[in-house]
């Protein structure tokens, strides 16, 4: 069961890696990198169960939080050009 899961996750990771290398805009790459982070988080848990060492769940918990925060920080930097921006929208 865990081998099947890891196979499916690896296929999905290859697809996401293709988009991250190819993507025409930077937002495509951000989307693909977020997707790769989610896949790696799941793959760490599955590999931990495969080797009968479920302690890897702690690592993947940290990785899930870091992936979330880093994607938001990357998007904020590309949107405002400054990480300490207040976040107010320009009025159109």
């Amino acid at each position, binding site marked *: *069961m865990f081998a*099947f*899961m890891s196979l*499916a*996750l690896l*296929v*999905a*990771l290859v*697809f*996401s890696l*293709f*988009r991250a290398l*190819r993507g025409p*805009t930077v*937002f*495509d790459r*951000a*989307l*693909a990198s*977020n*997707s790769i982070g*989610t*896949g790696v*988080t*799941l793959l760490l*848990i*599955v590999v931990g*169960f495969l080797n009968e060492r*479920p302690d890897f*769940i*702690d690592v*993947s*918990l940290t990785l*899930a*939080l870091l*992936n*979330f925060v880093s*994607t*938001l920080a990357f*998007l*904020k930097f*590309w*949107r405002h050009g400054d990480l300490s921006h207040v976040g107010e929208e320009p009025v159109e």
Partner: protein
Amino acid sequence: MIDSVLTLVSWFFVIFGSFFYVVGAFGLIRMPELFTRMHAVSVSETVGSFFIIIAMILQSGWSLNSARLFFILIIFLFSGPFVSHALARAALFAGISPHDMEKEMVEDCTQSYPHSHVSPEEASECNQ
């Protein structure tokens, strides 16, 4: 008895979740532009990781590991919509609009008409 039922149910969740996950990643390479890609990935990846983690919770039983997996599940359920919302707003702010993408695709269709296998009827359908 209860072990075999648990294994059966978690196999169901594994196949369901893996199917959704792989289809979402396939949409990431097959969809034509940014917003459709975002739609494919954010929806199906949330569902796929939800089912995969539910299957692993069923496998690990009533232990500390299932509690950790539950927290990872909560993080995924929150972070997926947050990230796709921020990504869509950042892309709109940067000047990428879905409407422009649509126009570009229609122009591609008419340009490829004279020297391709697209018939005039199909090209006129494409223009509408």
